[in-house]
């Protein structure tokens, strides 16, 4: 199908974009459009005005400080994927990106768009929430920082006000010498929406004990779910397979699991435990393979 008629404008600043949104309650932002355009083609979305923020210079680019990476919201997923700093400083994001759509959609899709869209099955929100990252949102009143846990309100729902624009994502950077990350996902076919996804990042100390850990589950839950209780239990452990499973089982058991025509709650819960276990073990193995700093 073809999209319903709409007007189109390409502002050159975030302030201008916010003002355009504020003036029209049916206006919507578009960046890469890799989710919004098909929604419009199926007429599940009928915005009156598309405000294109894909080329606003202040929304594009990646910067890094000692403890965080900042991603301009309109930075394309493919550009992040190719950036060699991401693998070093935000390894979980680097592991998650190849699972996002497929190469042609990553060429247009943006990193902030995926977060603003808040699809429960999306990989970038899961990586961000697992690491306890933040989202910067600008509106007419100024810029607000949301923790990922307060940003995602439900499936396709966020804390962004109507006249707001996600400007930057903040990924915490772990500077330990031995850091590993892993991402696991199951879907009906390659690049399709995940039924369950799991993400983990692990830092080991010189003795091989877990110094820091982040693990989360997505797609099975309405919003990405970080498994805080399991993380607390695993800190300081050796992360052997039995310890991982013992810590994750009650955490996954406590999750609110979504059901749809594709998979039952029981299936999703079982797979969530398997994939989360695999992600933590994969992250641990990658961290173990790194030399302890002398």
């Amino acid at each position, binding site marked *: *199908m*073809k*999209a*319903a*008629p*709409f*007007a*189109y404008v*390409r502002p050159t600043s975030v302030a201008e974009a916010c003002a355009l949104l504020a003036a029209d309650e049916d206006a919507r932002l*578009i960046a890469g*459009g*890799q989710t919004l*355009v*098909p929604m*419009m*083609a*199926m007429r599940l979305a009928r915005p009156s005005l*598309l405000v*294109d923020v*894909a080329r606003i210079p202040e929304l594009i680019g990646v910067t890094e400080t000692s403890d965080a990476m900042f991603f301009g919201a309109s930075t394309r997923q*493919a550009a992040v994927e190719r950036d060699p700093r991401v693998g070093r400083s935000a390894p979980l994001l680097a592991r998650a990106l190849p699972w996002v759509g*497929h*190469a*042609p*959609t990553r*060429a*247009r899709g943006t990193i902030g768009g995926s977060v603003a869209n808040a699809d429960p099955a999306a990989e970038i929100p899961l990586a961000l929430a697992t690491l306890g990252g933040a989202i910067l949102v600008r509106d007419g009143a100024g810029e607000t920082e949301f923790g990922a846990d307060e940003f995602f309100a439900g499936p396709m729902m966020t804390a962004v006000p109507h006249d707001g624009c996600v400007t930057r994502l903040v990924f915490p950077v772990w500077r330990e010498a031995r850091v590993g990350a892993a991402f696991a996902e199951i879907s009906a076919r*390659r*690049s399709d929406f995940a039924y369950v996804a799991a993400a983990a990042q692990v830092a080991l100390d010189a003795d091989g004990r877990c110094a820091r850990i982040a693990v989360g589950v997505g797609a099975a839950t309405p919003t990405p779910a970080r498994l805080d209780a399991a993380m607390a239990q695993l800190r300081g452990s050796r992360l052997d397979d039995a310890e991982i499973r013992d810590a994750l089982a009650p955490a996954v058991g406590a999750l609110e699991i979504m059901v749809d025509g594709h998979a039952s709650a029981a299936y999703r819960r079982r797979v969530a435990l398997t994939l989360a276990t695999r992600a933590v073990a994969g992250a641990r193995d990658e961290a173990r393979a790194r030399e302890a700093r002398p």
Partner: protein
Amino acid sequence: MKTTLAVNGRTFTIDVEPRATLVDALRDELDLTGTHVGCEHGVCGACTVLIDGEPARACLIFAVQADGYDITTIEGVAPAPGELSVVQDAFCETHGLQCGFCTPGMILAAQALLRSNPSPTREEIVSAISANICRCTGYGQIVEAIELAARRLAGSNAEKRP
């Protein structure tokens, strides 16, 4: 809405509704019907074109969004009228197409792969075309075609343009 499209090295200024997708503008305004329209919602890959050298869905971008980008369609890949590119030729030789509906998208996906990675593994080839659906060939001969094109480009002294 006035929009400037840079397609296959030529610049066109067209007047389109904002809701016209890039693939509809290419086909209906510029008569470049080599880019095929399949699902119209980003699943099948038939409408794949190169935008600034990267494969993208021409049905998932409105023409007004593509204003000023460098666009390559299947009409832009052959070195001269009546000739075939190395990739196109390899598709013919290995029977990498049957009905031909997916072929323009497959060829552009292959071109982009070989430009960034001149000697891809089989797995990398499969990954590069995984966003494109073919209902005839079972993909085997398409993968062979891209392998053949890679070998020919590597062995040729001529311009390394896929």
